[in-house]
């Protein structure tokens, strides 16, 4: 008699097909960025030079072009690597390439994980991405940058992945929720790094657009898990 192994009989939201999950994640991120581009631009016109929405969408359009013409055999990290190289090589400004660094670290951790738990790999990659972004940008929590969303997302993702390693969906949902909490906090902060720092208190009340981008990234991940589950079950 065959014994069902792992998922399927539990309430876990582990993605059964990790390769399909990462591709769906990047496509959903592209959809979300395109849908919110006008709002991101409006935010960045208040606290930056107004190009963040366009740069994020440009990076994701370049990502989708790569996904449509994939290079190499299907693998969980392939779509993440495509997004990383699109953001690092083709996007101007500074926030876009910083997203590339984050995606590259997540891709590296996912590629290294092989048969390990996806939640653990995603947590490790996100933590390494946060560290790389902080080394480069020298921003700390409270400086009103994307770090204000990424740091709590990383820490909640890590805690949840340690508690329930077999449930990537739950870990990503925690990360998304923590990232949006960070976005709301940036609205109350005065910038000390990035272009918004030139404005002082004039940027008060406006959330940081880079932080919004991070929250969109983790929301897209959550919806990609949910969507796969509905198709596969």
């Amino acid at each position: 008699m065959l014994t069902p192994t792992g998922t399927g009989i539990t309430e876990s939201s582990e993605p059964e097909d990790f390769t399909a999950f990462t591709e769906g994640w990047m496509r959903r991120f592209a959809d979300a960025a395109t849908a919110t581009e006008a709002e991101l631009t409006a935010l960045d016109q208040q606290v930056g030079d107004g190009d963040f929405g366009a740069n994020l969408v440009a990076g994701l359009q370049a990502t989708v072009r790569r996904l449509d013409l994939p290079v190499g055999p299907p693998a969980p990290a392939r779509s993440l690597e495509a997004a990383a190289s699109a953001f690092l090589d083709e996007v101007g400004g500074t926030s876009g390439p910083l997203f590339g660094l984050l995606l590259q670290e997540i891709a590296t951790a996912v590629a290294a994980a092989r048969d390990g738990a996806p939640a653990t790999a995603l947590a490790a990659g996100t933590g390494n991405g946060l560290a790389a972004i902080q080394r480069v940008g020298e921003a700390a929590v409270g400086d009103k940058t994307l770090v204000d969303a990424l740091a709590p997302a990383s820490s909640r993702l890590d805690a949840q992945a340690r508690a329930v390693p077999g449930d990537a969906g739950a870990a990503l949902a925690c990360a998304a929720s923590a990232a949006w909490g960070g976005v709301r906090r940036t609205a109350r902060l005065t910038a000390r790094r990035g272009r918004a720092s030139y404005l002082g208190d004039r940027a008060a009340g406006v959330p940081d657009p880079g932080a919004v981008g991070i929250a969109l990234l983790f929301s897209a991940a959550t919806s990609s898990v949910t969507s796969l589950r509905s198709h596969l079950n």
Partner: protein
Amino acid sequence: MGLYFANVADELVGDALAGFARAHAGDVRWDERDGYVRALKPAPTRRVGLVSGGGSGHEPLHLGYVGTGMLDAACPGRVFASPHNRQIFAASRAVAGEDGVLHVVKNYTGDKINFGIAAERLAREGIPCGRVLVDDDVATESAEIATGRRGTGATVLVEKILGAAADTGMGLSDLVALGTDVVGRCRSLAVASAAHTSPATGQAAFDLPAGAIEYGVGIHGERARRTLQERSLRDLAEDMVAALADSLRLDARAQVVLLVNGLGGITRLELYAVLNEVTRLLDKRGASTVRTLVGDFVTALDMRGFSLTLMAADDATLAYYDAPADTPAWCGRAG
């Protein structure tokens, strides 16, 4: 004030790079696809590649210092805009030696981030990468300025000295230590009697009344904290030398390398007169001016102004300074 001579404003940098490569065809190559200028005849003894870069509009920096004895590669951005990390990554991979690559970075947020992203990518490929951050501009020396002093004229001296040291086969960590020490020995200050012409508008980037002097201007036209009225060259030089000497804590009997740098729109006649005043003031302080450089080294498009850089030298840095170099714009000589 007049318009720039360019076919298309956006293409001025690219056209200039093509012309630069044509003028120095045997010595450098412009890689248009990857966006960097590379030296064709580096010393075979080099174990570390030297890479710098930054916004265009400061010529001859950095292009003019690519060549034997100085930089292995330079990455130009658009006018006053940082180069893309992709250019820095490609240049660094191309010129990395057995002990990696050293980035010489002027202290501006955009440059730091783009060189930093390239450094992360190099680390991922196992290429050792170090950084020397140049921050010499005393106009931005203040406890209130969290980003610290800007990087300006000292960059040329740092690139020269590190180039000579790299030619001896010095390793990456020693080059980082040497470069950091040299940066600490250098201070600069710039003044202008007229702004540069904005390439976007064809107008002065900022307005100065006749006779006014912007004291502590930046090389991108950043306004100074003070605008002086009707100051003689003698009085101006005295203020500037005092500010530099104080920041360096220059003691009597110090050996000083003096760079009198034109910002792009000033005559050589004036620069030599500046040099005359400054050396006189240094003599009066008991310092000995052991080397002088005069000319346009780090410009701000066509800004009508000059900067002074003082380096408190020791015998080791002077030996590297005096070592031969052959690049399109280096004109330093021993003596």
